[in-house]
Structure formats: C-alpha cells, structure tokens
C-alpha cells in the first residue's frame, strides 16, 4: 500500500513537472541562477584564499647577522627558532648566496651590477629568513628576537618593522575579504531563499483549486502534498545538474586565466572543482531540496484545510 502510494506520488510529480513545463522551466531557471551564484562565490573564495596564501608566503622576517658572527652561532639561533610551534621554516642564506641572488634578481639592471663590481668585499650579511604558519605569528617572532639579549648582540640589522606593517595590512585585507565574502554569500542565500519560496508559493497558488478538488475526492494531505514535494525535488535535482554542467563549462574557460593569475601556486580551478564536486553540489542539492520542500509545505498548508 505504501509502495503503491509512493509510486503514484512519484508518477504524479513527474506528470506535473512535464505538463506544467513553462512553470517548471521558470522555477528551474531561478534555481540555476541561485545555485550558480553560490557556486561562483565558492570558487571566488577558493581563488581568493589561494591569492592570500600566495601573498602570505611572500611575507617573512629577515634577520641579518653581524659579519663577525660564526655560522655555528647562526645555526644555533636557527635551531631555537625552528623549535617554536608557530614557525613553519627558517632558511639560512649565506652572504655569498645572498650576493648571487641579488645578481640574478638584478640581472637586467646594469647599474646595480656595476656597483656591485666596484665593491671589493661582499657587502651583504648572513641571513635567516623566518616564515610562520600564520601571518599573525610574525609579531611573536619579532618579540622573541627583541626580548632575547643573546640574539640582540648577534643581529646587525632587521627588517621587522617594515614587515610588521605589511603583515598587519595583509591581515586586515584578508579579514575584510573574508568578511565581505561571507556577507555576499549570506545576502545571496537570503535572496535565493526568498525567490525560491515565492516561486513555489506562486506555483501552489495557481493550483489551489486543484488541491481542494483532490481533498474533496478523498485525498489525504500526504497524497496531495507528495506530488508537489516531488516536483520541488525534481526542480532541485534538474537545477543542480544544469548548474553542474554550466559550472564545468565556465571553469574550463576560466581555468587558464586563474592558473596564470596564481602562477606561482599549484592551483587549478578545474582540479579544485573535480576534487570538491560531490561536496559542493551535494550540499547545494541538499540545501535546495530543504528550501524547496520547506517552502512547498508552508505554502500548501494554507490550502489543505478543505
């Protein structure tokens, strides 16, 4: 009996979906627009996260040691800094390596290269480049270096202050970008929910006499509600599949630009989508089913009391 009723409800849902094709197309279009907006936001957030990581990876604290400091002393500092949990890595750059890097970096600047040749000695110092897991932890590194007297006597120069300002600014930008991203996502989601709820309400309003007829010939509430809910699930399913298709298409087209933009990272939008396809579209489908079923049930309740 339950299986018979369920199979009838599914059949009625499919019939309603097909026979009311224009209303179905309009509703699906809105579902697709909503889901595509959400998907776009997910992708923009992913790209933004990568961009922030890229910029963050460029930020470090450089510690320049006095020429008299031995390599052993520098390694001892390196070992101590590496022992801190929030320090990701500490890179030792000898003064000859630093000079070589400078030459490579200014390969196209003859003036700088000429100036370097003029000098008899290597003017650069041995350096430790410290990177932390989180940009907010740079301040802790700076504090330790400042507060420890045995470090202070070894260090000749530090670019802490400059980096501090950059790091703070970056943190502020990252926080703002994340905040705006969330605000936009929430704003879009609210609009999407309102649009979907109203579209379904209108669809049900147009069928209110049909609902009363069903009730008058003895249909139970579940038998009336079932096909409408089934129809809503169809909208969500078809809408999600179309969004998936469009997203693949758009991702394929935009991936070379993203790869180019984030050239120094190993990030590809297409790969990101492939890795998260079930996660992203699964959640979107479930969310859309929930919104559709909820709004269908609410909209129907008014007309079921016949």
């Amino acid at each position: 009996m339950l299986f018979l009723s369920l199979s009838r409800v599914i059949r009625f849902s499919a019939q309603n979906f097909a026979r009311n094709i224009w209303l179905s197309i309009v509703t699906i279009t809105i579902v697709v627009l909503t889901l595509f907006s959400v998907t776009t936001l997910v992708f923009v957030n992913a790209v933004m996260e990568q961009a922030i990581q890229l910029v963050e990876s460029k930020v470090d604290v450089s510690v320049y040691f006095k020429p008299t400091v031995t390599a052993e002393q520098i390694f001892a500092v390196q070992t101590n800094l590496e022992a801190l949990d929030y320090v990701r890595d500490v890179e030792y750059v000898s003064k000859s390596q630093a000079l070589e890097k400078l030459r490579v970096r200014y390969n196209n600047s003859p003036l700088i290269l000429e100036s370097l040749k003029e000098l008899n000695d290597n003017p650069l110092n041995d350096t430790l480049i410290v990177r932390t897991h989180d940009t907010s932890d740079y301040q802790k590194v700076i504090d330790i270096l400042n507060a420890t007297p045995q470090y202070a006597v070894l260090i000749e120069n530090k670019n802490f202050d400059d980096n501090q300002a950059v790091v703070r600014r970056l943190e502020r930008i990252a926080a703002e970008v994340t905040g705006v991203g969330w605000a936009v996502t929430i704003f879009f989601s609210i609009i999407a929910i309102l649009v979907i709820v109203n579209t379904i309400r209108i669809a049900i309003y147009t069928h209110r006499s049909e609902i009363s007829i069903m009730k008058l010939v003895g249909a139970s509430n579940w038998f009336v509600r079932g096909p409408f809910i089934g129809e809503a699930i169809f909208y969500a399913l078809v809408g999600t599949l179309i969004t998936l298709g469009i997203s693949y298409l758009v991702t394929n087209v935009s991936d070379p630009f993203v790869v180019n933009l984030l050239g120094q990272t190993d990030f590809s939008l297409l790969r990101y989508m492939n890795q998260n396809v079930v996660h992203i579209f699964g959640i979107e489908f479930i969310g859309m089913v929930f919104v559709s079923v909820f709004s269908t049930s609410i909209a129907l309740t008014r007309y079921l009391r016949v």
Partner: protein
Amino acid sequence: MITFKNVSKIYPGQQIALKNINLDIKPGEFVSIVGQSGTGKTTLVKLILAEERPSKGKIVIGGWDITGIKYREIPTLRRQIGVVFQDFKLLPRKTLYENVAFALEVAGESNEKISEIVPQVLKIVGLESKVNRYPTQISGGEQQRVVVARSLAHRPKILVADEPTGNLDSINSRDIIELLKKINDFGTTVVLVTHNREIVNDLRKRVITIEDGVVVSDQKRGKYLL
C-alpha cells in the same frame, strides 16, 4: 443513511446558515433539496462532506457520527461519498481517464482494479472514446458526465450532487438527471441539491425545501414549492 439531528450552522458574525435541521434520509432514497440561493443548501452539502462542522446538533452518515470527525478521518469519509459539483471540479492537468482514476488512486485501489473500473464508468456516461482528452478539450455537459463517472468509480453508497445542472443547457441537464436516476436504481442514495423547478417536478421523488436555513417542507413525492 444520512441523519441530521437538530443541526445548526452559525458562521462567524452570528450569520445563521442552518437552524435546527432534522433530516433522515434512508438507504436507496433519491432526495431533492431545494431552495433559493443563499438558503443554506450548499452549507448542508458541506456538512455532509465534513467541509464544515455543525455549530450545534449531530450528523450521522452511514452509521458514523461525523459531528466531531477528526481531521485525519475526513479523507476516509469522502471516499465513501460520491460528489458532483456545479463547477465540475475536474483536475485540469489530468486526462479524463486520470481524473476518474484519481478517485480510486487516493483510496489505494490496485492498478489492475483501476484499469478495470475506469473504462466501465466512462462507458456508463458515454465518454469511452474521449478518455485521453483533457477537461478543457470537452464540453460542459461532457465535463459534468466525467464528474459523475468519477463519483461512481469507487461505488459509493451516497452520491451528493450540488447544483449539477447549474452550468448546463436543458438537454445536458436532462442527461445528467437521467444518469443520477440510473445510479439511484442501482441502490445508491442520491441527494440532489438544486433550484431547478422543472427537474424537481419531473422527478416525482422526495423533496425537502429549505428557506432561510430552516426546513419548511419535506414531501415524499414532492414538487418545487417556492
């Protein structure tokens, strides 16, 4: 079969639709309920179908006291009563076949039984050749015949027809009344609500006259009095 004991229906605002109605309709009877517009005939139909609840009194349908019927029990009651309305009330997105089948599907009838019964009842009303049409593709008279077929599908013991000829011309009206008489001959209790004098006088069956929510006359072989 249908009993009303001191039934009153008062709508909000102290609007009295029915006042102290006492009726006893026996199984197999053909009863016409007549009265002018706004006298409470449709309210009476709504009470039988549990679309409305009485403000006072008791209603018993087929031995079932439906005065305080629970909301979830209403579909079970309606599956035992065939209903024909003035405005047809067919499902526009379903074919004639599907409209008739729907009344059986909601009752959980098997697919085999449905495919056996639906063509039979559509044949009784003379629409066996139009089963795949939609309600908008047939005439008003034909639509009403589909409604009669639908009301017959689950072989109800009671058939309530609320102004079934209200939207039909005289030829189609006569066809519908003939169908109702045929259904009554099979033993179904028919309650015909109408204000069509000609039809009531031709029937020569029991006539209950309502005026301002009160039963003013109940004749065994009656005529339209108003």
